[in-house]
Structures are given as C-alpha cells and as structure tokens.
C-alpha cells in the first residue's frame, strides 16, 4: 500500500509526457488521456487518504536506501488533505474551466500537480526545494501561456521573484545541512535540538527558509508578483494558481516550522516568533489596504489572498493546537473560495466583458447563479458562519484569546471588517447598482473561455466551489478532528 506514495508523484510527472508528445498530432486523444491522468491522480489521493485513515501515517523510502541518505516520502492526516485538494482542484478545473488546451500547456498543468504533490508528501527538505521549483517553473510558464507582452512581462517578474525565493530557501537548507549534516525532516528535528536552537546557523536557516517560502505565499513585502501574475493569466490558470500556488507552500511552512524546527524553537528564540507575528500583521494590513483600493477584481482577490496568508502566519506564530488548526483550515478555506472566485471572474469577463468592480454593476440580475456563488465565496473570505472562513477565524481568535495575544485578536477582528468592506464593494455592485446601459453579452479576447457548454461548466465549478466553502464550514469540526492527531503530535 505504501507504494502508492511514489505513484502520487510519478503518475503526473510521467503523465506530463503524454500531452507533450500527443498534443500536436492527436489533440482529442491527448486531452482525454490528460483527463484520465488527472482523475487517476484523484483516485490515488483518495486511496492514500483511506489508507492513512485506516492504519495511520506511513513513510516510504525511494529505492530502499537507509532513511538518513534516502529520499523519504511521508503521508499523514495533514499532508493527505493537501494532496487531495491538489488532485481534485486540478482535475475539476481541467474538466470545467479549461478549454484552451494545447499539448505543451497540458504538460505544464500536470507538472504543476506533480510539483505541488511532491511538496505535500516529501520528508526531505532538499527535495522540497526541487518540487518547489518544478511547480514554480510550471506556474511561470502557465502565466506566460497567454499571448502578448503583459503576460510575458508579468511571468518574467514572477519568475525572478519566485526564483529568488526558492534560492533563499535552498540557502536555508544549506545552513541546516552545515549545522546538522542531514536533510531528512525527522533527522533534522532531533539534530537541531542537539545543536541548540539559539545557534546562529539554525536561526539563520529558519529566517532564510521562511523568507523563501514567504515569497511563494506572497507575504508583505514580497507580494507584488501576485496581483500582476493573477490578473494577466487566463481564468483557468489564475483559478489553479490562486487555489494551490500559495496554499501548498503555506502547508510546507507549517510542516517545516512544526515538524523540523518545532514549537520549542519558537519558544527558545522569541524574536523569531515576534518576527512572524509582525510579518503576519503587516500582510493582513497591506493585503486589506490594497484590496480596498483595487478596481480590477482579480487584483482585489490577489490582495485578499495576501491578507488570508497573513492570518495563516499569525496562526503559525501563536503555535497552539487551535492556532495551527486555524492556519490549516484557513489555507483550505482560502483555496476553495479563491478557486471559485477566479473561475467566476472568467465567466463575467467572457460574458459581459466585465473585469472591474464597477463593471460588475447589475450583473446579479443577468447572471444570478454565478453572482450568488460569488457572494457565498466572499462570505467565506470575510469569515461569516456557516462557511469554512468562519471556522478558520474562529479557531484563530480562540487560540489568540487563550494565549492572551490581544493585539492578534484585534487584528483578526479588524481583518474581518476590512474583508467585509472589500467584499461588500463587489457584492453591492453585483446586486444593488443599476446596470450602466446595455448588458448585451460582449465578446472580448480576455476571457480564454469558449461560449456555450464550456461556460456552463465553468458556472458549475463556481457553484460547487461556493457550496464547498459551506460544506467544509459545516464539517469544520470533523476537519479539525482529522488534523488533530498530527497537530497535537507537533506541539
């Protein structure tokens, strides 16, 4: 059964060859096979999840080498959720939102899945770097997939910033190796304690690793690439990136802080914990401020992600079981809501040529189903019950009150008000504003969505994503209980 673990990475990475080879000559067969690979990946993810539920966490060392030098993989209650999220999102978006398929871009789609799945299941900090770069490269190229200068320039900047982040992470890995002589997460955990948490090497390694992943999470002040890249990409790509691109590195940050450095490190070096709180609060403030000032909805959503990731980092800094659960639930909740919202921006752009907040005026009457789903997703981002966003914020506030971190309580509550303000702007436009004259369907070149059935499938995705925010919200106690054994093992 543990042989399923390497398959999780091998299937999409080898499968990426299929559209690259067949895409040009047999586009229909290539597309069907790609769907098959993505659905197969969902099956594998479910199988691993069931296996972990039945018999607990499992590890696998590729090639049967000793764990100290081998390439370890590990699946537990937390990583399987993110593996499943990656597989389901990639498959669902491919089937519903994605229409403008070519062989090479389908390959990138599969490589992105392979890289993110690798980040979720690896038990080795260097392999995490490699998977970070695999998913990064695929993301840069996907953003550039649309023709034109804006996409190429945004992708170029995304590449520069993303590579700096990944290279800083690699440097952090180097410091860890110099300090301990090992790269496996389990070995590092024991050896770092032996080296001493206040060793300059260890503290520097933590800072470099956090800054490196902070670029991928788009934490303030490293957030500038995100709105640029998400605003120029096609709707399917921006939905994929917004759902997974920062979520899985966010999971990696949680994993590294608690499984490698451990909460004892945060206790031993209070300055690091303060630094995390400051970065988290700054991201919440900057994300909220910029989100309020955007006219382009896709840029607004990108800054909303900056705010959400700030909350995740605050959860990591508080480092109690409730706070870490909050961080994980917020990651899942933001992913589901953003996927639906970015797919919806594609529907509005294609059908009405509307990309700005003002352009959304009156669309609630013309596209009631999409507008309703958008409102629900926004409610989850704001954090009102019964959505998953509420569950995440609730756990975070409870954790902050328990640790008497009153500043954090205030920040989380203020973030809700700010979120209400920017979400309210969009929802108010959708429902209360009069349409500015004709609302005839406008064909723009900006959508990347075909007409007819493809657009209806996109609406289905948006509605399912909105329902998912409510369903995961209602099941948030179960989700937290599912995370609990692993989270409590960390702390």
């Amino acid at each position, binding site marked *: 059964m543990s042989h399923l673990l390497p398959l999780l990475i091998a299937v999409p990475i080898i499968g990426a060859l299929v559209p690259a080879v067949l895409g040009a000559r047999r586009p229909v067969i290539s597309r069907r096979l790609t769907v098959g690979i993505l659905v197969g990946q969902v099956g594998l993810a479910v199988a691993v999840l069931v296996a972990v539920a039945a018999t607990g966490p499992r590890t696998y060392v590729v090639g049967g080498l000793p764990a100290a*030098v081998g390439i370890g993989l590990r699946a537990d209650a937390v990583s399987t959720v993110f593996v499943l999220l990656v597989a389901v999102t990639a498959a669902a978006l491919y089937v519903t939102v994605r229409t403008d398929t070519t062989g090479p871009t389908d390959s990138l789609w599969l490589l992105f899945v392979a890289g993110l799945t690798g980040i979720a299941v690896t038990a080795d900090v*260097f392999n995490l*770097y*490699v998977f970070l*770069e695999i998913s990064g*490269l695929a993301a*840069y*190229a996907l953003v*550039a997939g649309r023709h034109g*200068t*804006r996409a*190429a*320039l945004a*992708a*170029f900047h995304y*590449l*520069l910033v993303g*590579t*700096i982040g990944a*290279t800083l992470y*690699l*440097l952090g890995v*180097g410091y860890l*190796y*110099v300090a301990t002589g090992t790269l496996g997460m389990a070995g590092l955990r024991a050896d770092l304690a032996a080296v001493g948490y206040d060793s300059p090497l260890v503290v520097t390694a933590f800072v470099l690793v956090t800054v490196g992943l902070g670029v991928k999470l788009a934490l303030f002040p490293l957030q500038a690439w995100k709105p640029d890249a998400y605003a120029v990409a096609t709707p399917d790509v921006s939905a994929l990136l917004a759902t997974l691109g920062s979520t899985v590195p966010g999971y990696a940050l949680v994993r590294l802080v608690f499984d490698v450095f451990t909460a004892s490190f945060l206790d031993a070096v209070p300055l690091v914990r303060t630094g995390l709180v400051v970065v988290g609060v700054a991201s919440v403030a900057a994300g909220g401020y910029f989100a309020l000032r955007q006219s382009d909805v896709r840029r607004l959503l990108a800054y909303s992600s900056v705010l959400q990731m700030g909350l995740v980092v605050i959860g990591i800094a508080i480092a109690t079981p409730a706070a870490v659960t909050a961080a994980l639930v917020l990651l899942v909740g933001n992913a589901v809501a953003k996927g639906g919202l970015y797919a919806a921006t594609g529907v509005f752009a294609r059908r009405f040529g509307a990309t700005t907040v003002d352009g959304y005026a009156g669309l609630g009457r013309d596209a009631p189903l999409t507008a309703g789903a958008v409102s629900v997703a926004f409610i989850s981002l704001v954090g009102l019950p019964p959505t998953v966003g509420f569950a995440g914020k609730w756990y975070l506030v409870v954790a902050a009150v328990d640790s008497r971190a009153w500043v954090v309580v205030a920040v989380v509550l203020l973030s809700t008000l700010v979120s209400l303000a920017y979400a309210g702007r969009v929802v108010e436009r959708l429902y209360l504003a009069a349409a500015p004259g004709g609302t005839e369907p406008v064909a723009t070149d900006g959508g990347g969505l075909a007409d007819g059935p493809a657009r209806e499938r996109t609406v289905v995705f948006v509605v399912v994503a909105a329902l998912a925010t409510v369903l995961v919200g209602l099941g948030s106690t179960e989700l937290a209980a599912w995370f609990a054994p692993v989270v409590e093992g960390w702390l």
Partner: protein
Amino acid sequence: MTTFDALFGTMVGSRGAYVVYALLVGIGLFVLVDDDNLVKKIVGLNVFQTAVFLFFITAAYRADGRAPLLSATGPFVNPLPHVLILTAIVVGVSITAVALALVVRLYDEHGTFSETAIREARP
C-alpha cells in the same frame, strides 16, 4: 599538489570562499534589482544562484580531501553537497531557459531589452 589546489586550499582555509559567496549574493541581487536590461537581470539571477552553489561546495570541502572514489584512499570531500548542487544546477538551467524564452518574446514584440521601454510601450 598543484598550485591551484594550494591556492584553493588557502582560500578555503582562511574562509575566503565564504566572503566570495557573500559578495556574489550581493552583486547578483543588486544587478537583478537595479539593472533595466532584462538579459542582465537574468545574469544577476545566475550570479546569485551560483553564489549559493559556492556556499554548498565550500561547506563540503576539507583540507587535502579527494574525490570520494571507491578506488581512492581518504580523506574525502563530502560528496552529498556536490550531488545536491548538480541537481540545483539543472534546476537553474531550466529557470534560465524559461526566462530567456520570455525575454525573446518581449524582444520580438518591442525590439528592446529595456524594461522601462517595454513598460512605456504597454497599451
């Protein structure tokens, strides 16, 4: 022992290579951020990445260390960082290839490598 070995040994012995690593990180990042030319930005990125590679290789060095071959006798340099950096070099080459492809596309459209000019030409 050749002159190069002696020189490299002294440089590492006095930890000079770590100074070079720090300098290259600074130079690479400065060029990347400061230069208006997109190709030079990529060069800056490469210098930055190479600096990190140098850090790993320096950490693996030991005085009078040899290549870790089964037929040879020790002491050996640590082979693991070398293997890691071989992988990282491959990653770096892929990144450079994608970056250059994007710059080629921008150049085809605008006939310039200047970021300012491309931004101003944007519709």
